[in-house]
């Protein structure tokens, strides 16, 4: 699959693993701090970094030999963004809410 690092991807797997554990600790720690309106953005940013690490390295999107796979991933995220983004702009701008 990954001719670029055919020797051993193990180092990378363990690095990602420890980064994910650190991210979990960090998100629990950040939740105990009063960051005003930034608690949710910080939590979601950490979650997104963790999810991206899993997708790129554990799910091999980074080394995917098929460009179509990357297109499907980006397309799916785009539609998710439409779903969440457009719905929330509606609810956030209703005068009565």
């Amino acid at each position: 699959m990954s001719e670029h690092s055919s020797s051993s991807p193990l180092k990378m797997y363990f690095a990602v693993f420890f980064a994910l554990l650190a991210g979990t600790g960090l998100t629990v720690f950040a939740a105990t701090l009063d960051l005003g309106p930034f608690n949710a953005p910080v939590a979601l940013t950490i979650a997104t970094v963790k999810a991206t690490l899993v997708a790129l390295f554990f799910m091999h999107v980074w080394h995917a030999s098929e460009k179509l796979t990357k297109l499907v991933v980006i397309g799916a995220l785009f539609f998710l963004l439409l779903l969440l983004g457009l719905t929330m702009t509606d609810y956030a701008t209703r005068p009565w809410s």
Partner: protein
Amino acid sequence: MPDSTAVGLHHEEQHHPELLHHFADPQQQRDASSLGMWVFLATEIMFFGGLFCAYLIYRRWYFGDFAAASKSIDMALGATNTAVLICSSLTVVLAVWAAQTARRTLLLASLAITMLLGLTFLGIKGVEYKQKFDEHHVPGASFSFDHEEIPGHPGQYANPAHAQIFFSLYFVMTGLHALHMIIGLGIFLWLFLAAWRGRFTPEYNTPIEIGGLYWHFVDIVWIYLFPLLYLIDRHA
């Protein structure tokens, strides 16, 4: 054309038994399987996306009630489960690597440990659900969430009806996630039995790769569920 027949026969004899005849080579077959799985995962993203969208709308409307309800869930259990799933994602990539490099013992051990971690996750989830049942926090006739203070607003109490919406979303989202875990356990049991019979080789290990994609996706869903459900306004 005797020549091409000879080439065709030669090809038939040479190729790997797992290579289906409509694919040019194993790489193409692997890419096609992986692409198909990603298209399925795209539908899963939209499926969970709808739930996340409902969650966001109600969280915006009833933030204080959501914070009070979220605080009643055991954060330590949720954090432990996050770590358990991350460990299982590591054993899944180890299983894929072991299959690619023909390490039979590591492959079987990784698949077995993945299943054990999956069961651990569901066990911890069960403990958590039991707590919620005992506290009458399960939406329904016996639901009760009276006199629960809104974090950061002393003297203000959460509206039980709004808290019930939080718990409905909590049970539906974690419940559907748990259902995915149970299906994942079934997939990995099948992978383990096939690996036991020696079906996977460095040339052919697509089912492990594909099953792994599914497992990692379920892990990613949890990575978002944990902060959204367990960590609302914890500092207050």
